[in-house]
């Protein structure tokens, strides 16, 4: 009876409300919104339950015509929303509290969102605003240093994506996190405009990402793109233009230094001196392949929210030149986001992004420029270049010739459409059903040709004449390639949400998802036997060359599917006690049917101590305190090739008999029919705090994460194809601390200081019972063994240089060691140096990383300084170990040992002494660095200053990025090369990270 009564009363109230709305008188409400002292511009003021809305002006004032009995909702990022009943008032001044700032905001938790205050896992958010003001074409590049536990290794290549790791290396195979863009699972997010991102949520712990089943094990980067703001029609334009410049070069010898060192080396090996007489050049090859490059990003957004619809249109054009010559990346983006609220209970929406990119790879070779002898001049005209001297001619070419020859000789473009459609229905009072279909169509196409070779001048040596040679048998080749890919995803969820007796909030959700990726590609080339194809892109199609000429072609495809069901239950009691639980049953087509499915899930508990009465009464200084603990279990199917459990037959082999060619097949690898996904289980304990009137905030996390059944490829007995299997366990433990202080000094100066620090300890717990082999990487330089970090450096430890034969006699040595050689530590104390003396030399993966920032605001001015760094890892300068030919020397070789007492670090110049090329600490340098990541100064003009131009807000700024790096590393960047997991940390000529100096503006109409 009671129940019926309740329902009846609700209905009655509802009817009355509707009547009231229909017949209520409208009043115009005015007022000012402040934070207690200062006005807050841009606060959304909405009549509750309607789309009638406005925003406050720069002076915090608003005016809105509303029904006299309505409720106004005031909301703004960084402030707690407030609801105030109008009750016929015409002036409503509102003071908004900054308390527990972001806690009311929602974060993505996978197939749904949750208020930050209810979260029990480790989820960090970065606002799109912070990313949009950085000069970058990749949305991920600017995350560097911003979040504890997130490692971002940037590349300076135009348009390139950084390598991203969340909480260390949990897989020996693929440790890249999952990208989820508005719910759509993606491998590549180049198609996004960084300025069109509302926020990025990083789901770092196992409990947060468990709902993504087989795909979330390396953490999840959830990106939410912008939606039309409430209340108003807006136009926003942002633009940034900058120059990029390489400030840290690799120090190599000039002509004089080279001549000296090569002459010394020849004398040391007893060879005749080289005749340098005709080599009069002094060329800085790096100077010639590097350029000061432009970066330019532009974004224009139109948005509108009407009674029934919200619309957002974004156009973007980004252009980045690489600092290596002729490298350029451009992208064009057009996005339309639309939502139609058909009724109060039913809405539909669609989002479509069209993307086009044009990519010109670098035509210059970094290593080539470092290796080429500086004694050679560059060229005599645009078609005639100097060849390298005889001692390196066969292996090292003039770096500039291929750079110019391959300039703009190909066209590489891509198109993609990423779209989604959703429908959402509220039913039975507490239920919401939502279905979303996503699709991506990608299409890449390229075509190009080979330009005729240049002439080369062979400088006369030993009295011989200088000659000019040209390959007159050149034939031009035209090539074309196209690939398409498509990806479909569907998500269906039903959510039940209810608050009972004001104290119990329950959200339950169940859902189903499926994914399918597939693609195909085709490519071909034709080589003309009689004509040289002109340098005219209009002709670069296969058809330009008669089909009776030389031709090649190729093609292939791929397909992968994924399906899962999932559920989540969230429960909070009195906002104090929090529970989150998820479950997922997930399957992947990559594995054999019997190994395809897994069940994953998580449990999270939280206690908001600051909501307890005793706390509120006694601890005033702390505004918010949450303790949380969570556990999650999930699988990892990334990085394993499709259908790896089956034996594929390689058919790229040929037998030759006489002049006849016969095709051959053979197993491509050794199959493991029991191959299955990795299992990751993690426990996370955390604390969130806001204190001192919420000026202070901090988050601390402790985690441990274990990966079982690591998917690893390892070479078994020599000659066997690599074996890919599940083995062993690895553990990542760590601590993440981030904190900040936001405050004011006086009336006008605001500041924020924040910092983050993380420590990750990676340990291999076991490499399995079945493996009988050592896991090595990079030719034995890196080992993976129980008790150490994955892929640690393993080699000899340099103790100095053998100075003399007397020195040799009393020091452990190889049987053929000579004075001037590197002396190594006799770690096993057997009196000689042998392979048994190799030992642990460090880890390629930085265990410590940190970031810090200081931002200041004074009236219209704002300033930002950010720094970022890592510590504790080693970099292997593999580029210095190359000795296949005589290469230019790095500057450290100027200090090479020549006689007793001359050097105790650099061995003698003698490339016949193999002992000095053994992998040792001689070739390691500390990976520690600190980088001044950003220095930015801006000024914002208020509406009162620009009202005539119809401008609401205008911000202009100057920015410097990567302008100084403190490091002992000698390469182009100290950022650890961690893309390879079992063989990481080697610097083989990394694309330089430039400093970027830019100017930008952000204007809203």
């Amino acid at each position, binding site marked *: 009876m009671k129940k019926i009564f309740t329902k009846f009363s609700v209905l009655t109230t509802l009817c009355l409300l509707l009547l009231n709305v229909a017949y209520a008188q409208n009043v115009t409400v005015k007022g000012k919104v402040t934070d207690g002292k200062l006005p807050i511009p841009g606060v959304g003021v909405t009549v509750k339950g309607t789309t009638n809305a406005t925003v406050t002006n720069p002076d915090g004032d608003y005016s809105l015509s509303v029904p006299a009995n309505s409720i106004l909702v005031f909301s703004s990022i960084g402030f707690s929303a407030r609801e105030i009943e109008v009750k016929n008032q015409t002036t409503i001044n509102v003071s908004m509290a900054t308390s527990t700032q972001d806690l009311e905001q929602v974060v993505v938790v996978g197939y749904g969102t949750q208020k930050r205050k209810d979260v029990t896992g480790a989820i960090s958010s970065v606002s799109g605003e912070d990313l949009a003001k950085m000069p970058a074409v990749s949305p991920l590049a600017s995350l560097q240093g911003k979040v504890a536990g997130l490692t971002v290794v940037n590349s300076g290549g135009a348009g390139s994506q950084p390598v991203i790791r969340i909480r260390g290396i949990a897989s020996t195979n693929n440790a890249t996190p999952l990208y989820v863009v508005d719910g759509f699972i993606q491998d590549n997010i180049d198609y996004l405009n960084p300025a069109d991102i509302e926020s990025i949520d990083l789901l770092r712990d196992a409990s947060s990402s468990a709902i993504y089943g087989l795909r979330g094990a390396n953490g999840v980067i959830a990106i939410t793109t912008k939606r039309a703001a409430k209340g108003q029609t807006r136009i926003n334009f942002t633009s940034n233009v900058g120059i990029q410049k390489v400030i840290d070069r690799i120090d190599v010898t000039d002509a004089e230094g080279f001549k000296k060192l090569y002459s010394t080396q020849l004398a040391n090996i007893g*060879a005749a001196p080289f005749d340098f007489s005709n080599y009069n050049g002094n060329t800085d090859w790096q100077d010639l392949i590097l350029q000061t490059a432009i970066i330019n990003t532009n974004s224009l957004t139109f948005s509108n929210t009407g009674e029934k619809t919200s619309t957002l249109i974004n156009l973007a054009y980004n252009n980045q030149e690489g600092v290596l010559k002729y490298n350029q990346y451009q992208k064009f983006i057009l996005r339309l986001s639309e939502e139609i609220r058909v009724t109060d209970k039913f809405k539909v929406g669609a989002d479509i992004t069209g993307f086009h990119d044009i990519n010109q790879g670098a035509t210059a070779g970094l290593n080539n420029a470092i290796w080429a002898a500086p004694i050679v001049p560059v060229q005599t005209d645009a078609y005639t270049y100097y060849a390298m001297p*005889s*001692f390196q*001619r*066969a*292996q090292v070419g003039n770096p500039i010739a291929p750079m110019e020859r391959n300039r703009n000789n190909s066209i590489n473009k891509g198109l993609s459409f990423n779209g989604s459609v959703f429908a959402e229905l509220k039913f039975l009072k*507490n239920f919401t059903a939502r279905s979303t279909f996503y699709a991506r169509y990608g299409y890449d196409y390229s075509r190009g040709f080979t330009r005729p070779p240049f002439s080369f001048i*062979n400088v006369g*040596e030993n009295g*011989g004449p200088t*000659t000019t040679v*040209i390959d007159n048998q050149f*034939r031009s080749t035209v090539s074309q390639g196209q690939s398409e890919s498509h990806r479909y995803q569907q998500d269906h969820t039903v959510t*039940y949400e209810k608050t009972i007796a004001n104290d119990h909030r329950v959200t*339950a959700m169940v859902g*189903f998802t499926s994914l399918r990726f597939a693609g*195909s590609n085709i490519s071909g080339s034709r*080589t003309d036997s009689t004509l040289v194809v002109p340098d005219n892109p209009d002709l670069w199609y296969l058809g330009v060359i008669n089909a009776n000429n030389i*031709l090649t072609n190729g093609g*292939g*495809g791929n397909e*992968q599917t994924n*399906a899962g069901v999932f*559920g989540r*239950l969230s429960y909070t009691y009195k906002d104090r006690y929090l529970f989150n639980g998820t*479950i997922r049953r997930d399957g992947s087509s990559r594995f054999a049917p019997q190994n395809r*499915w897994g069940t994953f899930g998580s449990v999270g508990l939280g206690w908001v101590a600051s909501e307890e009465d005793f706390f509120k009464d006694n601890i005033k200084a702390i505004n918010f305190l949450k303790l949380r603990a969570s556990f999650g279990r999930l699988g990892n199917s990334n990085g394993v090739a*499709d*259908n790896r459990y089956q034996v594929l*037959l390689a058919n790229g082999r*040929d*037998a*030759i*008999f*006489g002049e006849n060619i*016969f095709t*051959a*097949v*053979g197993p491509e690898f050794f199959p493991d029919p029991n191959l299955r996904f990795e299992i990751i289980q993690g426990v996370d304990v955390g604390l969130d705090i806001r204190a001192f009137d919420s000026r202070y905030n901090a988050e601390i996390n402790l985690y441990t994460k274990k990966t079982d059944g690591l998917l690893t490829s390892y*070479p*078994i*007995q*020599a*000659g*066997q*194809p690599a074996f890919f299997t599940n083995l062993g366990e690895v553990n990542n433990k760590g601590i993440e601390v981030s904190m900040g202080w936001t405050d004011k000094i006086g009336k006008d100066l605001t500041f924020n200081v924040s910092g983050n620090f993380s420590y990750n300890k990676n340990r291999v717990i076991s490499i399995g019972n079945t*493996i009988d*082999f*050592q896991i*090595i990487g990079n*030719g*034995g330089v890196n080992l993976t063994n129980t008790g150490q970090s994955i892929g640690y450096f393993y080699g000899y430890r340099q103790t100095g240089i053998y100075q003399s034969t007397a020195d040799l006699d009393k020091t452990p040595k190889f049987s053929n060691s000579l004075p001037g050689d590197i002396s190594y530590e006799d770690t096993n104390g057997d009196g000689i140096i042998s*392979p048994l003396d190799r030992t642990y030399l460090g880890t390629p993966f930085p265990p410590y990383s940190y970031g810090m920032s200081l931002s200041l605001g004074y009236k219209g001015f704002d300033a930002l300084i950010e720094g970022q760094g890592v510590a504790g890892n080693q970099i292997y300068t593999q580029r210095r170990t190359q*000795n296949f030919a*005589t290469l230019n020397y790095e500057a450290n070789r100027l200090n090479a040992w020549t006689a007793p007492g001359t050097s105790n670090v650099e061995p003698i110049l003698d*490339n*016949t002494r*193999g002992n*000095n*090329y053994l992998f040792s600490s001689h070739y390691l340098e500390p990976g520690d660095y600190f980088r001044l990541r950003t220095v930015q100064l801006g000024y914002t003009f208020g509406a009162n200053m620009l009202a005539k131009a119809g401008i609401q807000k205008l911000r202009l700024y100057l920015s410097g990025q990567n302008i100084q790096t403190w490091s002992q590393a000698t390469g182009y960047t100290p950022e650890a090369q961690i893309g390879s997991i079992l063989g990481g940390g080697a610097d083989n000529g990394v694309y330089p990270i430039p400093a970027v100096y830019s100017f930008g503006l952000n204007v809203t109409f």
Partner: protein
Amino acid sequence: MKIFNKRNICMAITAASLISINSGCKSFLDTERQGVYTTENYPYPQGGTPYDTFLFSAYDALRAYNFVSDGFMVASSIRSDDADKGSTPTDGGADVIAMDNFPVLSNGRVNTLWTEYFVMIVRCNDIIDQVQNNTAIVATPEAKLQAEAEARFLRAYSYFFLVRAYGRVPKIDKPLAATANVPQSSASEIYAFIEEDLKFAAANLPLNWESKYSGRSTKGAANGMLAKVYLYQQKWAMAMATANMVMTSSQYDLSVNYGVIFTEAGENSKESVFEIQGTASAQVPTANGIQYANIQGTRGNTVEWNRGWGWNMPSAQLEAAYEANDPRKNRTILYSSQAGAPRQTYYGQTAPLFPTEVPNPKYNHKVLANPSFIARYNTRGSWWMNVRILRYADVVLMYAEAANEVGGAANIANALAAVNSVRARARIGAPGGTLPNLTTTDQAVLRTAIRQERRVELAMEHERFFDIVRWGISQQVMQDAGKTNFIASRDNLLPIPQQQIDLSKGVLTQNPGY
């Protein structure tokens, strides 16, 4: 109570989904690899030669970079007293320089060399496994025997190189479980394994092939290789008998002029018992070829002589080893022209000028490509040139050596006749009195003469280093050649690659002295 009811409903839905998804999604998740055969859907050829596609995978491995070019040439030729590294003094770095000057490094190309020979062994084992165990292939017993024989011939060839180069190596005679970590067997066990394979191969391989398969493994190749395997074990009578089987097979003779043997025209001739096959075309200049001639080609400044790296330079010791006027000297050593003293190549071109056009005074003449082929294929890389692995003259000299060692007047007479047959061909076109017939019947004198003949006839053809080791004279020979670092007890064998020792967690052990 209400919420619990609803939650129960939710749970029921979840449970139902969980159950249904396993069956409902079965076909959705059953994707196949696109555009690639698997062992399950491969259309195994049926009929006469069903194993050919797998067998050809092994022949493919013959052309691998270290199997027949870099590692192979460096370890068997530059390491010997007949050749030096060549090229510019510092070229190639410590690793290849150590192959010339000793001791050889354990972390360089010895590893890739080792690996590529085991790639061949693994492919051969796969074929043998197909023949024996794949019921999807319907084949006649003859086809099975022949396929297995080819695989075992190639496996034996690989092991023969490995045992000579490294001594103790792991014996892998079947596809391994992924976890197998096989220790080394003694050299004598490996030799026994090789003999078994070659006997089987010789019994089941054809005498010859139709022309489209020229160069494919034959009975003669298996017997010729077996004779050499016996020779290395000093099983003289067996070696003599087996070499004789090749000589009486009517497949081979000494009719091809010495100069022609090494030309493109000399490929797969009557002289050829086994050679690794490469080809090229203007379209595909390298992929179907072998880099062997390229890495030894002249390292010239001019377009004409920019043919390669200039490695493997004939040594002064080899130069001095020839008898007066022996035409083989100029066919083996390509002398660079010197100021005022132009030299000719076999093809009549003026040789490049030393030191202005090329940095070395000598090159390996046997790898010099015919200019007409360079024009035809529009490339100077010379990748089309076959590598002579077993020549008929080698078999004849093996017979001579074995017969002389067996001894007895008749055998020594036969040995003498055999050597003289090789000398007779060699002297064609030379002034009278060049390379006169040998007449000695003294076993020791003849032994020395046969060894000398073997050296010059097969110079730069990868026999020399292994020969001086098996004759037990390596220490003396290398000292005489000025290789003062050479210590026979260590340097007769290459080091076991350190990386392989590391990978095996010490199951593989290093050779003595390293």
